[in-house]
């Protein structure tokens, strides 16, 4: 296989469409182990895109690389949820077994070892991806088996299958449904009637922001333009979130049917499911479901025997949390860097390729199919007034039964902890790092948009966890995942993490807490998209609820520049001289 063969083949596969750069670079990476500068120039020529833009894409996504990777890439999740004691030990063992460090490739070019952000296996970490295949519940012992299986290319038989861990199936998402039942009811209404039904259900988007789905659809339906698009956001990357993984595994047809219903409602013929690169292993099963639905007439030409056409393609991502932000998702679908767009215009007016676009979460679409099947009133009978229906919670961390729970909105943190066996927690993080750390005194707060909003992530931290280490891990995550377009998020998060780590190391002084609060406020208020507007939350919410954790690590100011670490500055001299410095008191 060489470049001159692979690039034109990949380009031809997507009709040399300049908006499909992502598919081409993904294929080149998969087949050649890298996207070299030569490949970048070739791709640019084949797709008639400026070379600097292709280079921009290749350098943006974690799973693409200009440098040569091994024939197999092992990516260990370095997410807080995965990196407990077993995680660190497994990381050590991986390096020992492979004889290389993270970021390196074995001398025979067989295996590369890397870290990666959350891969959505939080209920069964420590976890890794071996190329596309997820590997769960790693221990140092299992690492040995894993490396042996990779070397012998017998990974499939080695028994590393991912567990389901769906502990509570509710009435809305996971209940049985006759294929096409929701769509059938939708087609019996006119498009405005479908939107009316979704509005009447008071369904709010399940991705975390909670925008009313029916209102979004109404805006899009009213937007000018013949061609419209339905986009499903399957880029769940918020640490602690893995609900879409189980929805796409167990009830993908509900999701696709919900998309078809949205298509009918807004007048769109095209749907795209944007699947995060970490979930690429699900692609064959999803394609199979799509084929089955086309055969049954739930997708394709003349839906349900009517006049409306609707079909769906799956767009794969390549490792970038920010793409879960709806406008960044659109940029990525268009083949570019996953950089959010300025709003207005909102996607409902000008989204994918400038076309009016509805973007909803996987769970939202699955829920829509059910609402159309059973009715808005039935759905709204679950949950609370402002947060109707059931919600999928992905629970991970220090609890007896991590996994998926479909429960009506409105339960308290305490009730949820009793269900999952997380009673002794010192803190529960609701909504992932972009959400809030909740302290035990507040466990009677309700989970829902009126109190504790969440896209589903619930992380339990037991009494022995070092919460500030957890917070620092999340800040590293945001530093790594910031797209870099705007200043406050790009630079501010680096500065927040730096000062936090100074405090953790015992070098912080009282002024540092005010410094952090001011920085966090700047990043939250001045950033361009939801990532930056919420990235300081791990620090903000722990400073509010667990201030003692910071205060206990502070040191007395010695009158010198508080952010100057004398010991660190002297390290090189100490090493060279072989003795510690002598300080002369006044």
């Amino acid at each position, binding site marked *: 296989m060489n470049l001159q063969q692979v690039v034109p083949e990949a380009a031809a596969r997507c009709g040399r469409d300049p908006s499909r750069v992502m598919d081409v670079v993904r294929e080149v990476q998969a087949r050649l182990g890298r996207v070299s*500068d030569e490949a970048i120039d070739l791709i640019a020529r084949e797709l008639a895109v*400026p070379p*600097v833009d292709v280079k921009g894409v290749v350098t943006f996504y974690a799973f693409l690389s200009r440098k040569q990777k091994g024939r197999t890439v092992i990516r260990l999740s370095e997410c807080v949820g995965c990196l407990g004691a077993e995680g660190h030990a497994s990381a050590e063992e991986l390096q020992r077994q492979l004889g290389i460090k993270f970021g390196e490739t074995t001398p025979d070019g067989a295996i590369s070892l890397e870290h990666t952000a959350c891969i959505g296996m939080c209920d069964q970490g420590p976890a890794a991806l071996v190329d596309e295949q997820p590997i769960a519940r790693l221990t140092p012992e299992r690492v040995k088996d894993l490396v042996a299986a990779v070397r012998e290319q017998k990974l499939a038989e080695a028994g590393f299958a991912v567990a389901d861990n769906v502990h509570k199936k509710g009435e809305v998402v996971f209940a049985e449904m006759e294929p096409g039942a929701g769509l059938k009811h939708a087609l019996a209404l006119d498009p405005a009637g479908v939107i009316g039904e979704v509005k009447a259900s008071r369904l709010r988007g399940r991705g975390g922001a909670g925008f009313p789905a029916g209102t979004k659809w109404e805006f899009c339906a009213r937007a000018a333009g013949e061609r419209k698009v339905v986009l499903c956001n399957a880029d769940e990357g918020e640490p602690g979130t893995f609900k879409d993984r189980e929805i796409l595994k167990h009830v993908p047809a509900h999701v696709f049917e919900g998309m078809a219903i949205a298509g009918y409602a807004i007048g769109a013929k095209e749907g795209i499911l944007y699947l995060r690169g970490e979930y690429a292993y699900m692609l064959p099963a999803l394609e199979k479901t799509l084929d089955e639905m086309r055969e049954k007439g739930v997708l394709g030409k003349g839906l349900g025997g009517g006049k409306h056409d609707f079909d769906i393609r799956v767009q794969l991502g390549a490792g970038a949390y920010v793409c879960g932000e709806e406008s960044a998702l659109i940029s990525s679908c268009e083949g570019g860097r996953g950089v959010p767009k300025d709003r207005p215009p909102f996607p409902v007016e000008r989204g994918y390729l400038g076309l009016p676009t509805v973007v909803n979460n996987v769970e939202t679409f699955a829920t829509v199919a059910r609402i159309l099947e059973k009715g808005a009133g039935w759905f709204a009978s679950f949950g609370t007034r402002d947060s109707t229906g059931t919600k999928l919670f992905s629970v991970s961390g220090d609890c007896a039964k991590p996994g998926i729970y479909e429960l009506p909105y409105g339960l308290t943190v305490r009730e949820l902890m009793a269900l999952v066996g997380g009673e002794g927690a010192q803190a529960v993080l609701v909504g992932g790092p972009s959400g809030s750390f909740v302290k035990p005194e507040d466990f009677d707060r309700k989970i829902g948009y009126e109190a504790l909003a969440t896209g589903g992530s619930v992380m339990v931290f037991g009494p022995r966890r070092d919460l500030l280490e957890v917070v620092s891990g999340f800040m590293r995550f945001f*530093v790594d995942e910031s797209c870099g377009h705007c*200043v*406050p998020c790009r630079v501010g998060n680096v500065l927040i993490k730096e000062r936090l780590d100074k405090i953790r190391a015992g070098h912080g002084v009282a002024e540092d807490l005010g410094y952090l609060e001011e920085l966090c406020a700047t990043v939250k*208020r*001045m950033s*361009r998209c939801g990532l930056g507007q919420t990235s300081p939350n791990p620090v903000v919410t722990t400073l509010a609820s667990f201030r003692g954790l910071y205060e206990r690590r502070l040191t007395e100011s010695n009158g010198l520049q508080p952010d100057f670490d004398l010991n660190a500055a002297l390290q090189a001299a100490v090493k060279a001289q072989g003795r510690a410095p002598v300080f002369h008191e006044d």
Partner: protein
Amino acid sequence: MSETITFTIDGKKIPAKKGQTIIRAAEEAGVYIPRLCWLKDLIPGGACRVCTVLVNGRPQAACTQPAAGGIVVQNETEELFRWRKNIVAMLFVEGNHYCMFCEKSGNCELQAVAYRFGITAPKYPHQFPQRAVDASHPDVLIDHNRCILCWRCARTARVKDGKPIFGVVNRGIDSQLAVGPEQLGETELKATDKAVEACPVGALMKKRVGYAVPVGKRLYDHEPIGSDIEKAGNPA
């Protein structure tokens, strides 16, 4: 005929054409909203966030937010002043800026905005990134140390010069201005291109013309940046 609307900035009535951004309407009415990545007649970038104002209490970038009838915009509040100042302070430690011997000194928008905000010393720890200088072009050089990633050159080159030669590589704090192909000297950039003039700092510069203007006659030697806008709108 475009429809005219009215809104207020810090209580002052501002007329605007429908669809016009807040920053443009403000500028035409003699109100200076600080900015770095915005350039007149160029698609806005929304990148530096220095032009953030409060629109009905919510932070919005004035360069991308359209004016709408009746909106209440706050430009000069104590909080906004602090947050903007913080952002500018971030830029000074993100890159390696050496005002005292930079050819752009006195004509530099970053330096001028910093002076207007009263920034005299670094507030945050310097990051001291390792950044390169690209001197491969005969007439123009890129010093990445001084680049603030405003993408004015990239947008200008595409829109005005019709040359998509600048772009962005990497992400997050590692983001960097890039040229395609590899080096500036391999591109079709000319020293007369509008992109070269678009740089607000000393990152993209013509060679052999540094320090040509003596101290005292440089753009921002006597009056703070933005004074021209304020004067035009408020004749004495």
